[in-house]
């Protein structure tokens, strides 16, 4: 674990080696956020790079009011969303509230998988979900952010975050139940 209070002043004084340490520390987090929002593999690395360029550019504005990881995740989220809005509007679903009636384009696990791999199946389902659900599920489960931190990152009210998380999991659980029943029968 890096000591941010020691590292950040070094970066602000132009120490690029120190910034490299920060990039290594948070590249996983940035990738997870970007990965869930952007579907094109080629764009992911470019957007991750862009995120860190922005982090470096605006680091002097970071005031330790939140965790550095929350602040970086917010930049990653906004950068990825803006990219989607600019280049691929298909990724942004306008009405994600109607998740109960959401239909997956590829939900037959038999067609998707050669072997029983729950994680792979779940990831494929998540990839087809509306962006808000993908982000909330990733931030909560993968990056272990709290509801409050997710609200801060995404700009959604905390209640909405809870609701997306609950309904997203419920939908995935229902699909997983069907999948497991099919596997057993």
């Amino acid at each position, binding site marked *: 674990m890096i000591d941010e209070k020691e590292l950040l002043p070094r970066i602000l004084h*132009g*120490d*690029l*080696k120190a*910034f*490299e*340490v920060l*990039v*290594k520390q948070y*590249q*996983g987090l940035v*990738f*997870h956020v970007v*990965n869930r929002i952007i579907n094109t*593999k080629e764009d*992911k*690395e470019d957007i*991750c*790079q862009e995120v*860190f*360029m922005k982090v*470096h550019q605006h680091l002097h504005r970071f005031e330790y009011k939140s965790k550095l990881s929350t602040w970086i995740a917010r930049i990653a989220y906004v950068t990825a969303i803006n990219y989607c809005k600019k280049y691929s509007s298909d990724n942004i679903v306008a009405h994600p509230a109607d998740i109960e009636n959401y239909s997956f384009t590829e939900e037959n696990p038999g067609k998707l998988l050669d072997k029983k791999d*729950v*994680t792979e*199946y*779940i*990831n494929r389902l998540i990839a087809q979900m509306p962006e808000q659900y993908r982000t909330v*599920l990733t931030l909560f*489960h*993968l990056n272990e952010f709290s509801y409050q931190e997710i609200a801060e990152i995404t700009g959604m009210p905390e209640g909405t975050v809870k609701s997306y998380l*609950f309904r997203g*999991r*419920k939908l*995935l*659980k229902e699909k*997983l*139940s069907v999948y*497991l029943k099919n596997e057993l029968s």
Partner: protein
Amino acid sequence: MKEMDDKKLQELLEKGLAGQKAGLSSEEAEELEVYSMLFEALGNEPVPDLPHDFAVKVTAKLRSRKQRMAETRFNGIVVFCCLFFGGSSIAAIIHFGGGEVIFGFISRYGTIFILGTILLLLIQYLDQKLVKQALLKGR
């Protein structure tokens, strides 16, 4: 399954109480099992699909951006100096007619002007060189 039951089961798992099946119906226990699998799958971290030298690439990009900015600043100052001195000279020549006064002025203080310009360019050159050295040290 009712929404309330799902909520209860999700809360149990969020609190890390997956093993607490006491008080749950067999249907709920079964659902809890599926939820446990789901939570485990959701927590499985995918390997970041980034090159191993990603951090180095980012800092290299930053370096080149900084260098570009420094070069632009240097070029801007050079252009400004050229325009300023060139323009001033032309304006003076035009204003003073034959330019005897300006030539007299230049012959008297010309050395100072030339040395001043050289000094300015030298400062810019050294600034560039030191910036490059500092960048190389940072690698």
